[in-house]
């Protein structure tokens, strides 16, 4: 049955949210411009009413869309295209923002929340700030409107509530059967079925939403000619945004590191760059805003930067969603026909902000005095300049597809493409910028806290510099850093850590609430060192030292850098004993893994049947003959690492997915304090490949007497007549006999249970295989007169897997450093909120 009501309700909410945002915009706009207090109050109430209704409508859209997804209403395109019935609830949530419409929705949701917070925390600023908020919300709501303007046949927005038959109106099934509902959806890309996909997008979009707040205050300040006052309420939000956006970027990197297989956390893909650039500029804007608060300089710079951040966010949205990146990026969205609308969105705010700035420019106060070299302003401004150049350097090449389009627009022809090796290209520039940033954040901090002369500076710096040099020497000796650019980066990183640590210690004694800056800069230093070691000194440890090629048809590099592991055979790698333990499957509703030899496959790839009782972590998880739901796409390869008496188990994953083409490998990571061992499979046994068995070797065997099967000691423990055989109908005169053969493998004992069958007076044999040993037993014949059995043995190549492992030294420094940086932001934010509250209590905000 089609569920029309829920979709219509969703549409209604979308339209309501669009209209109410316009109402809120108009009311707040009037409220800002009017001086008559009573009328102002009236418009304010209207604006508030409009925005609250808008927020309710936005929540309504979210709830209806989620109901559609959660109830599997596949008559709706969004549910059909992004989800299926097997997804657990938490991935159904991530389905929500898997599509473009949903991610716009997420963005709107956060801004609606932030808007409500602002309404309730600001008196003076409410009307102008919310004017900006409301118009931004109107633009976003228009992206999911999905309304065709009559007469013009221009479609505005792409609605998440369209029916499948509307999206695929050419599919023949809908002409025959308009009420057709598919039984299951397309599902979520398995690579996105990861917990990071549940929390990474909300964090990132909260970061996006936060950039609007300083922008809105800045616009309000220019509008009302309160050129200086907007900074105080905007600053805590800028700090919060810096922390959240930074965290979002980090989560994306961590997700890539854990799940994708390009071996790193950052690939300089245009989609990644598009968020990195605004973040850098946001950090720069935070610095100029703080400078302004302390010394009344850099006001104009603050305005320019705050506007740039928001415009860059819009630009990044345009880049990743308009399809302009097209083939330049691996994971940008495809064009939903919104590119024109996105461009209008970008240009509207770019020009609105520019015009307002130009009109007011002359009136903005600026200090004429030249900053002294010994002033903190000078050093901060240098740092800000470096951050901006750093962003600019990434922006230029990332925009190459846009340049091409622009040149074509004016009639030229451009065939520029992104640099072929993006990682090398960006790294060689960003590294030096990072060095400058680190040095400046070390020195700058000293000027920050003390207005000092050259003499005093020298005596202040002596101690820390000495410590920094010692530490630096120790690190490059122990870490064997010999490359000149890495040596310089190490020095800069250590320098900023030590100098800021000194400041931190001084501050902790006197005024810990001011320590945000020092903490954040220590984080920056740690991040730089972490990146330097984990990326610069990442090395392949799975070296093939056997002297034997894995496969002659493959390249020299492949044969050198990969390790072929046979099941249950121990090899050495990077100081560990490494052993492949076999293929594992992942039960859908139970944690842990199931050994593939414990189950029987069924026609449905997502359901298997337990051969015997299955233990997971020593506890019985499934009983024999249970049918178990599994994640059919995924196969895990259990790899054991041993060092001394410590054992670690890794489960790198492969998705052999013919529809997706080839092998999709995801790594598993063994983490230690000093390095990660990052392991992924690089070649696996093909599941549909015919197994090549050796010729049958026939052996006579007696009950209880040992014999050798492919060099393994084996013995027939028992022979029993059985009355039921799986898959065979036994008649009264039929006979079935089952032998129980025990085999001693390298790691414990295995049992094979071949069956000998006389059915309709015909002999049939059902062999049994011991997967781990690569042996198949057949009960060939029974010779009662000699009390002897004839056992057939076939062997095959043992199960194998080819893995590649990389060591990533000190990568924890990067993760910890990022958390330290975030902590710094939060400390600073807390302080600025307190300031803001103080002023508010005085009735000044």
């Amino acid at each position, binding site marked *: 049955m089609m569920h029309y009501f829920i979709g219509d309700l969703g549409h209604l909410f979308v339209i309501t949210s669009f209209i109410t945002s316009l109402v809120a915009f108009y009311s707040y706009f009037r409220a800002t411009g009017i001086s008559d207090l009573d009328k102002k109050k009236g418009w304010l109430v209207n604006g508030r009413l409009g925005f609250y209704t808008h927020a309710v409508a936005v929540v309504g859209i979210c709830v209806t869309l989620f109901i559609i997804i959660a109830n599997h209403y596949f008559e709706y395109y969004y549910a059909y*295209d992004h989800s299926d019935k097997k997804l657990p609830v938490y991935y159904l949530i991530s389905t929500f923002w898997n599509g473009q419409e949903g991610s716009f929705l997420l963005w709107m949701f956060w801004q609606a929340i932030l808007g409500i917070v602002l309404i309730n925390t600001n008196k003076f600023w409410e009307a102008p700030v919310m004017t900006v908020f409301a118009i931004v919300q109107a633009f976003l709501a228009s992206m999911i409107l999905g309304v065709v303007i009559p007469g013009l046949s221009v479609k505005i927005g792409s609605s998440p509530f369209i029916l*499948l038959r509307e*999206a*695929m109106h*050419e*599919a023949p*099934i809908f002409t025959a059967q308009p009420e*057709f509902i*598919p039984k299951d959806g397309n599902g979520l890309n398995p690579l996105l079925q990861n917990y990071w996909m549940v929390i990474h997008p909300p964090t990132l979009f909260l970061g996006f939403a936060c950039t609007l707040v300083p922008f809105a205050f800045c616009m309000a300040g220019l509008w009302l000619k309160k050129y200086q006052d907007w900074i105080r309420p905007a600053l805590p939000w800028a700090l919060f945004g810096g922390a959240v956006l930074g965290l979002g970027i980090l989560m994306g990197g961590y997700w890539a590191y854990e799940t994708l297989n390009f071996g790193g956390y950052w690939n300089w893909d245009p989609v990644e760059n598009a968020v990195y650039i605004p973040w850098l500029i946001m950090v720069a804007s935070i610095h100029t805003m703080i400078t302004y608060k302390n010394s009344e300089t850099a006001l104009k710079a603050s305005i320019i930067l705050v506007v740039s951040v928001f415009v860059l966010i819009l630009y990044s949205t345009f880049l990743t969603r308009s*399809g302009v990146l*097209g*083939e*330049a*990026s*691996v994971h940008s969205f*495809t*064009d*939903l026909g919104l590119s024109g609308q996105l461009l209008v969105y970008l240009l509207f705010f770019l020009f609105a902000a520019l015009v307002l700035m130009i009109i007011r420019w002359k009136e903005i106060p600026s200090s004429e005095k*030249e*900053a002294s*070299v010994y002033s903190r302003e*000078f050093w901060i*401004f*240098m740092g800000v*300049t470096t951050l901006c*150049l750093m962003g*600019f*350097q990434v922006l*230029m*090449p990332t925009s*190459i597809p846009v340049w091409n389009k622009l040149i074509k627009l004016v009639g030229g022809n451009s*065939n*520029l*493409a*992104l*640099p*072929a*090796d993006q990682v090398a*290209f960006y790294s060689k*520039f960003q590294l030096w910028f990072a060095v400058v940033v680190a040095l400046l954040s070390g020195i700058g901090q000293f000027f920050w806290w003390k207005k000092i002369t050259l003499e005093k500076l020298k005596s202040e710096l002596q101690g820390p510099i000495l410590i920094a040099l010692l530490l630096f020497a120790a690190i490059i000796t122990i870490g064997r850093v010999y490359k000149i650019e890495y040596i310089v980066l190490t020095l800069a990183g250590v320098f900023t850590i030590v100098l800021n640590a000194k400041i931190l210690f001084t501050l902790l004694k006197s005024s810990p609430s001011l320590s945000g800056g020092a903490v954040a800069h220590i984080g920056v230093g740690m991040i730089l060192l972490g990146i330097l070691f984990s990326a610069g000194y990442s090395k392949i440890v799975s070296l093939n030292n056997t002297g034997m090629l894995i*496969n002659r*048809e*493959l*390249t020299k*590099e*492949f044969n050198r850098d990969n390790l072929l592991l046979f099941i249950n055979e121990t090899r050495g790698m990077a100081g560990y004993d490494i052993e492949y333990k076999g293929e594992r499957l992942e039960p859908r509703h139970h944690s842990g893994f199931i050994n593939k030899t414990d189950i029987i496959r069924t026609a449905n790839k997502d359901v298997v049947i337990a051969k015997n009782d299955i233990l997971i972590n020593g506890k019985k998880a499934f009983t024999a003959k249970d049918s178990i739901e599994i994640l059919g796409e995924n196969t895990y390869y259990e790899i054991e690492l041993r060092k001394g008496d410590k054992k670690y188990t890794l489960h790198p994953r492969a998705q052999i*997915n013919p529809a*997706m*083409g*080839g*092998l*999709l490998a995801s790594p598993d990571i063994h983490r230690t304090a000093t390095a990660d061992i990052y392991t992924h499979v*690089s*070649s696996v046994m*093909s599941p549909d490949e015919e197994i090549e068995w050796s010729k049958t070797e026939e052996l006579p065997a007696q009950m209880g007497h040992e014999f050798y099967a492919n060099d393994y000691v084996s013995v027939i423990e028992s022979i029993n007549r059985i009355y039921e055989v799986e898959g065979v109908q036994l008649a009264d005169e039929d006979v079935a006999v089952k032998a129980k053969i025990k085999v001693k493998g390298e790691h414990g004992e295995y049992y094979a249970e071949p069956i000998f069958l006389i059915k309709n007076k015909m002999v049939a044999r059902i062999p049994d295989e011991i997967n781990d040993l690569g042996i198949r037993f057949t009960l060939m014949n029974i010779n009662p007169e000699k009390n002897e059995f004839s056992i057939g043995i076939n062997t095959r190549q043992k199960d194998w897997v*080819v893995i590649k492992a990389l060591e990533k030294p000190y990568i924890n420094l990067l993760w910890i450093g990022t958390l330290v940086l975030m902590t710094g932001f939060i400390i600073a934010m807390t302080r600025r909120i307190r300031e803001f509250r103080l002023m508010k209590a005085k009735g000044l905000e």
Partner: protein
Amino acid sequence: MKKSHILIIVVIAAAIAIIISTAGDASTYASFSDAYKMASNGNTNSIHVVGQLPKDHSGQVTGIEEGADKVSFSFIMIDENGKEQRVDYNQPIPADFTRSEKVVVVGHYAGDAFKAEKILLKCPSKYQEKKINV
């Protein structure tokens, strides 16, 4: 000259340097014949070639040869001038490869074969895909 002027000059110089380096290090889109000419002139820089995969009358992509163990493969690509060329790629077949409407290979000629270092795909937008599994 004031310090701020020096700073401005330095910033402008840096910006120009960045722009020049962007243009200098950027790769280019080219055809197979251009790429071949470049390689025979001893230029081994990587370039981007845009093209399509040949399809037979039933819409199946032809000419894909999987390497042993699925970790490398080669395929035929037709560039925008219609030139056919076999491309070697030292990695598994990327997801959605056969469904892509456009393929971009980044790499260079080594002898008569084109060695791809990277493959980028342009997949048809989901809205254009009117197939549905009934």
